């Protein structure tokens, strides 16, 4: 479904990505790890259509990705994904309303009833049916992310992009969210790209793990070379050894780029 051909991205002298080549089939669940500054988010933003590749091609069904966000690609950010002025139900309804009512973006009467039923069904599946009429500020962080996921899924996107969706959550809640996202993925068959800081999370979730890292790294000028996909492995067939290898391989970048790094 998605092809990436010799993709480069740089901002002036700052090379973010280089030589990215890969293909993704429909229904895959790809987790992406890597130190910060290694282009994970840039890559996601290109998939979303808010960044353009500098060179190379990023193709969806053989055609370049649309250059602005569209309905076929849902997104959940780490925060600010839900609308603070709408209740849980209305946040979820919004996707249907925007699609069906091009003038006011609001539905009334029977169509609204039908839309509400659909929204309630999705909210049920993410475990939010008891808080339909609360505003986001009245929800916990985990519940807000559940809402953001429900909101994205109601459009039945082909691709779901998750930008560190659970990064700000407590470990216990994170485990619940993993269950949730796996069951939704199995149910809908949507193609998922998920960025995470947590290497374990990358191993546990999904069918495929990508590691973005710089193959060449000049300690005096870290931006001279871009990152590429250094590991592309089917998760499930992996073992402790590969986990250690990746962890070790990232250490070099971590030391030089000196940031919070990939959690072990």
């Amino acid at each position: 479904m998605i092809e990436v051909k010799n993709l480069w991205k740089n901002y002036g002298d700052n090379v973010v990505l280089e030589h990215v080549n890969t293909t993704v089939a429909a229904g895959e669940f790809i987790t992406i790890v890597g130190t910060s500054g290694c282009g994970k988010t840039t890559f996601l933003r290109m998939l979303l259509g808010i960044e353009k590749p500098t060179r190379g091609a990023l193709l969806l069904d053989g055609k370049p990705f649309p250059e602005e966000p569209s309905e076929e690609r849902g997104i959940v950010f780490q925060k600010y994904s839900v609308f603070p002025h709408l209740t849980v139900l209305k946040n979820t309804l919004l996707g249907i309303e925007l699609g069906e009512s091009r003038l006011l973006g609001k539905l009334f009467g029977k169509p609204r009833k039908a839309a509400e039923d659909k929204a309630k069904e999705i909210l049920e599946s993410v475990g939010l049916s008891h808080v339909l009429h609360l505003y986001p500020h009245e929800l916990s962080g985990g519940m807000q992310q559940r809402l953001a996921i429900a909101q994205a899924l109601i459009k039945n996107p082909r691709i779901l992009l998750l930008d560190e969706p659970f990064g700000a959550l407590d470990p216990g809640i994170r485990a619940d969210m993993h269950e949730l996202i796996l069951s939704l993925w199995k149910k809908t068959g949507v193609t998922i790209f998920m960025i995470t800081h947590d290497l374990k999370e990358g191993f546990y979730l999904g069918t495929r793990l990508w590691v973005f890292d710089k193959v060449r790294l000049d300690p005096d000028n870290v931006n001279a070379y871009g990152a590429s996909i250094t590991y592309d492995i089917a998760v499930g067939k992996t073992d402790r050894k590969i986990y250690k290898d990746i962890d070790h391989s990232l250490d070099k970048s971590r030391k030089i780029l000196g940031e919070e790094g990939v959690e072990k």
Partner: protein
Amino acid sequence: MKRLMNRQPDSLVRYILGAIPFILILVLYIVSSEARLAENPQDKLLPSLQSMADAVDTMALQPSKRSGEYFLWNDTLSSLKRLGMGVGLAALIGLVFGILNGVIPLVRANLSPFVTAFSLVPPLAVLPILFIVFGLDEFSKVALIAIGITPFIIRDLQAKVLELPSEQLIKAQTLGASTWLVIVRVVLPQILPRLIEAVRLSLGAAWLFLIAAEAIASTDGLGYRIFLVRRYLSMDIILPYVLWITLLAFFTDYTLRYISNKFFPWFHAMSK
């Protein structure tokens, strides 16, 4: 003993501390007024509370001997009408252009420099032009208020739109929203409480322009009255009028705050 910066007044103390300046100024006024009146009963500068009460009675409760109107209420009505129209016009224009400037980069590139330049023109310096072009009627006064505060409202709302997290605008697009739908379903509802805030902040300036315009060319209005009776040094009328304008300003502000709290509870919960 805690540091001074860590000592919190309880509610009674807070109340008393807050009341002290008001009481002090009142006492100070009464004492100095009595001292002056004892020396010269004809003194007009600091009239006694009694003579102010009499003046209020004449202005508010007795019909004018000549025209039969109740001055205070007539003046209030005229002034509030002008203020309401001026501020309403400014809010409407401010809302439309604030949102357009904030959401659409092409419009922003087109209008933002102009609005910035326009906001630097001192509105009172434009007043003579308004009088020359539009005459001395209502429209000039309303226009002065609108010209005075619209640029501020546009710029404030534009900034507030730009402060909305880009995540929200992207999310809305992935849900299928057009530019128009992003405006009506995402931006507008979130900007309305901020419009109320901007209007509250600009009301002081609006009153200033209103009173200035009324002082120069008008036949009624609170500002007109104050400047009219100034000729006779009628402090007994001016002081209650000033107090009345202050009260009106307070109640307008209070009402706007109340509306905002009532209709945008999520906004006030977020900004806490």
